[in-house]
C-alpha cells in the first residue's frame, strides 16, 4: 500500500510531560484520516511535528516512502504539506489575495507584485474546489467560515497535496460545517489527502475513511470508520464507556435570578444588535439560548457582565439593578462567566494556571491580605481545582499558554464553576472539548442548577442546547423570538425558529 505520509514511532517531550510517546500514523493517498484523542492527548503536537513547528526527540517521518527531516514549515510546504490552524494566521486589513500570496508573491517582469495574475489563480482554485471566496475582499470584512477557507486556499496555492486541519469545525456554525465537509470531499476527489482533528464523532463517521486514536500521548490504533461506531470510538479514546445521554431530573425553577427588560445594546460598530430584549432565568433552571451566530448573543452577554454598556433597558440580578455596572461589581454580585473567546477574555496566557485560577478573586482573602499575595493559598486552590476538574497540566506553575486548547477551557470552567455564582453564564462552554470532558461539563452545569443556581447557556450546538437546557429561548435579530421546552421541539423546528420564521408552535410554553 502506498502511503503519502508516514509518521513512525514519534516521540515529543515537553518539560514534565511526554506529549507524544511512540505514535504511528499512516496516511493513504486520497483518504480523509481522522486523528482522535482527548484534550491534551497530543494531537496538535503531533501535527506540529509534521508541519515542522516542533522537532521530535525520536521517530521517523516519510513522505511518499522517502525519509525526510522537516525542520521548519517552509520545508513542509515544499513537501506539499499544508496546515489549517485553529487560530487563523491572517493579516486583517489585507485582502484575501494579499494574504494568500504573502511571502510567495508572483512578480511581473519589472519586479512588481502581479496582483492580477494572483487574483486570477486564486479565483480558479476557489472555483475548482467550490470555496466561493472573493479574492479581493478584505479579511476583516469576511466571516470566520470564509477566513478558514482563505487558510485552505493558502495551502492549496502553495501546492499542498496533504492538508492538516486542526479542529476546523470548532469555530464554525452548523451550516458552515456542512459546507466544509463538502469542500473536503471535493479536495479528495482532486487527489488530495487530509488529516482531520476533531472532537465531534459524528463528523468522523460522516466524512472520514480511517481514524487513528491516541490516548495520553500513546497511540491506541487505527480503525476503519466503516467498521466502527460512535460509541466504540468514544470508548477507544477515553478508555471507558461514555454516555451520550445527559441524565438529569426535571428542573424545579424557583425565584427569578436574572431578569432582562427591554434591553438595547449596540455592537462594536455602533449598530443596534440587541433590540428590546426580554429574558428571565430562574434559580434552579438552565435556560439555553439558541440562535445563529451574530444575532446579538455576544452583545447580550457582554451587557449583562458589564463588558459593554447598554443603551437602555434594565438588567436585574436577584432584584438588584446591575445595569451598566462594572465587571467587578457584576462579578461580586454573583455572576460567573465562561467567555466565548477564551484567549481574548478567559485567560492571561502568560500567567500560570494558578494565577489564572484567581483571576477574579486575587484581591480577596485568602489569596491576598492587605494587597500582599499569598502564593501558597493560590497554588493550593489551583491544585485542588486541577485535580477536581481533571485539567491536564504538568503543574499549577505551568503558563496557561502551554496547555492544550481543551485544558485551557477546563481551567476557565473550573474557576467559574468553583465560585458557585448565583448566575452562571456559559458561552460555548464545550467548544473544543472531547466527549468525555463535555459529559463532565454538562454534569457540572446540571449540578449547579440542582444546587439552586441559575444557568444561562449560549451555544451554537443544537445538540447541546437540547440536551442540557430546561427551557430554550430562541434569539433572532437581537430579540428572543420564542421560548420552547426541549421535550416539545426538535432540531428542525429550532432551526426554523432561529432563521426567523414564525411557526404557530412558537411561544406555546412559557
Amino acid at each position, binding site marked *: 500500500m502506498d502511503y503519502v505520509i508516514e509518521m513512525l514511532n514519534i516521540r515529543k517531550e*515537553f*518539560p514534565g510531560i511526554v506529549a507524544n510517546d511512540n505514535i504511528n500514523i499512516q496516511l493513504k493517498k486520497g483518504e480523509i484520516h481522522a486523528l482522535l484523542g482527548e484534550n491534551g492527548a497530543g494531537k496538535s503536537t503531533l501535527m506540529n511535528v509534521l508541519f515542522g513547528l516542533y*522537532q521530535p526527540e525520536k521517530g521517523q517521518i516519510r513522505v511518499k516512502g522517502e525519509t525526510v527531516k522537516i525542520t521548519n514549515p517552509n520545508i513542509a510546504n515544499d513537501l506539499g504539506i499544508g496546515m489549517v490552524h485553529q487560530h487563523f494566521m491572517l493579516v486583517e486589513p489585507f485582502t484575501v489575495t494579499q494574504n494568500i500570496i504573502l511571502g510567495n508573491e508572483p512578480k511581473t517582469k519589472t519586479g512588481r507584485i502581479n496582483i492580477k495574475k494572483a487574483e486570477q489563480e486564486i479565483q480558479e482554485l476557489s472555483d475548482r474546489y467550490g470555496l466561493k471566496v472573493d479574492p479581493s475582499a478584505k479579511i476583516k470584512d469576511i466571516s470566520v467560515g470564509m477566513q478558514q477557507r482563505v487558510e485552505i486556499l493558502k495551502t492549496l496555492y502553495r501546492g499542498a497535496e496533504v492538508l492538516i486541519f486542526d479542529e476546523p469545525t470548532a469555530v464554525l456554525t452548523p451550516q458552515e460545517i456542512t459546507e466544509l465537509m463538502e469542500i473536503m470531499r471535493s479536495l479528495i476527489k482532486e487527489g488530495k489527502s487530509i488529516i482531520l482533528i476533531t472532537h465531534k464523532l459524528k463528523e468522523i463517521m460522516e466524512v472520514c475513511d480511517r481514524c487513528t486514536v491516541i490516548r495520553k500521548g500513546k497511540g491506541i490504533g487505527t480503525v476503519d470508520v466503516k467498521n466502527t461506531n460512535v460509541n466504540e470510538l468514544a470508548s477507544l479514546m477515553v478508555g471507558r464507556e461514555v454516555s451520550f445521554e445527559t441524565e438529569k431530573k426535571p428542573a424545579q425553577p424557583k425565584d427569578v435570578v436574572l431578569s432582562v427588560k427591554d434591553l438595547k445594546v449596540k455592537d462594536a460598530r455602533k449598530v443596534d444588535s440587541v433590540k428590546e430584549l426580554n429574558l428571565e432565568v430562574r434559580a434552579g433552571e438552565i435556560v439555553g439560548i439558541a440562535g445563529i451566530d451574530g444575532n446579538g448573543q455576544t452583545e447580550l452577554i457582554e451587557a449583562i*457582565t458589564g*463588558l459593554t454598556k447598554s443603551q437602555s433597558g434594565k438588567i436585574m440580578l436577584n432584584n438588584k439593578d446591575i445595569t451598566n455596572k*462594572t*465587571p*467587578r*461589581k457584576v*462579578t*461580586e454580585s454573583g455572576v460567573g*462567566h465562561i*467567555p466565548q473567546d477564551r484567549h*481574548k*477574555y*478567559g*485567560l*492571561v*496566557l*502568560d*500567567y500560570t494556571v494558578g*494565577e489564572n485560577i484567581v*483571576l*477574579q478573586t*486575587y*484581591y480577596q482573602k485568602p489569596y*491576598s491580605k492587605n*494587597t*500582599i*499575595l499569598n502564593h501558597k493559598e493560590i497554588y493550593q486552590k489551583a491544585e485542588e481545582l486541577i485535580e477536581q476538574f481533571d485539567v491536564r497540566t504538568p503543574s499549577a*506553575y*505551568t*503558563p496557561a499558554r*502551554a496547555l492544550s486548547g481543551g485544558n485551557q477551557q477546563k481551567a476557565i470552567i473550573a474557576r467559574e464553576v468553583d465560585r458557585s455564582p448565583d448566575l452562571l453564564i456559559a458561552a460555548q462552554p464545550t467548544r473544543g472539548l472531547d466527549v468525555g470532558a463535555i459529559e463532565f461539563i454538562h454534569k457540572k452545569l446540571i449540578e449547579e442548577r440542582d444546587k439552586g443556581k441559575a444557568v444561562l447557556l449560549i451555544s451554537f450546538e443544537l445538540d447541546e442546547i437540547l440536551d442540557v437546557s430546561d427551557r430554550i429561548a430562541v434569539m433572532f435579530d437581537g430579540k428572543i423570538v420564542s421560548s420552547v421546552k426541549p421535550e416539545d421541539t426538535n432540531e428542525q423546528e429550532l432551526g426554523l425558529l432561529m432563521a426567523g420564521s414564525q411557526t404557530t408552535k412558537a411561544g406555546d410554553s412559557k
Partner: protein
Amino acid sequence: MTSNNKLFALIIPVISVFLGLLAGAIIMLLSGYNPIEGYSALWRGAFGDAFTIGETIRRTTPLILTGLAVAFAFRSGLFNIGAEGQVIVGWLAAVWVGLAIEAPMIIHLPLAVLAGALAGGLWGFVPGLLKAKLGVHEVIITIMMNYIALYISNEIIRSVLTDHATKTDQIASSASLASEWLQGLTYYSRIHYGFLIAIFAAVIMWFLIQRTTIGYELKAVGFNQHASKYSGMNVSKNIIISMVIAGGFAGLAGAMEGLGTYGNIHLMSGFTNLGFDGIAVALLGANNAFGVVLAALLFGVLKEGAGEMPTGAGVPTELVDIIIALIIFFVASSYIIRWALLRFKKEGK
C-alpha cells in the same frame, strides 16, 4: 519551556556582555591598540582604588533608578521613554525643596527626596492619563514631556531659583545625601547615601511586581487588557498607576543627582542621558528588578572606567560607548543567540 525561558533570560545578557567586550577587543586590535592594556585601564578606572570605586557606585546609583523606571512601566506593557524628563523634574523639585525649606535633617531630607519622586510621578501621570483616557500613545507623549521638562526646568533655574545664574546655590546640608564618612573612606569621591535608596527602590519594585495584588494587576494589564477587564480590573487606573510609579523611580534618580552628587541644579544645554541610558539598562536587565541593578552596575563600571582609558592605554573613551552599543545590539538581537544556542544543544545531543 518555562525553565528554558528563565535560563535564556539569564544567559542572553551574559553572553551579550561577553560578545560586546569581545567585539570591543577586536575593534581595539584593528585600530592598533592593545586590548589587554585597554581593558586593564578600564578596570583600574572603575575599581583601581577607593576613589574610583566610590565614583563607580555614584555613577551606578541613578542608572539603577532610571532602569527601574523603564522596566516597571514595561511590565505593564508601556514604553516609558520619558525617564529623561522625569529625572530632570525630580532633580529640580528635590533641589528646590533643599533650598527653600529650613528644617531638621530628619524632616528635610526625606521631604526633598519625596519631592523628587512626586515630581517624576507627576511627569509620568500626564502620559499615563492621556494613554488611559484618550488612547494617545505613551511614547509620543513621554518624548514631548522630556522637552517640556528640559526647558521648563532651565527657565525656573534662571528666573525663579536664581537671578540669571547658570546654577543654583548649594542645598542646605540638612537636605544633603552626601556623607562625610563615605567620602572619607573613598578619598573624597562624590559617593553619597543615594545608592541605598536605589537598592531599596529595586527591592520595592520586586516586591510590588511579585508579591502584591498591584503587581498582579499591572502585569495582567500588560499581558492582556481584555482579560484584565473581564476579570474586573480597572485597566485605565492600572496604566496610570504604572506610569506614576515609573515616573517616581526616575524622579528619585534626579533627586540623587540634586541631593547627592551635585547638591544643586544647573542649566542644561541638553539631556542628562540618564533616562535614555535607563532604557538600555532595563533592556539588559530583562526588566527585572535585580537584573536592572546588575545592568546598571555594569554600565556604571564601563562609563566610569572609560575615563582611565585615554591616559592609561591611549584608547579613546568613545570605545566604551561602542562597547555599550554593541552589548545592547546583542541583547536586542537575542533571537539570534537563542537560535544559535538551540542549534548547539541539538547538535550536542
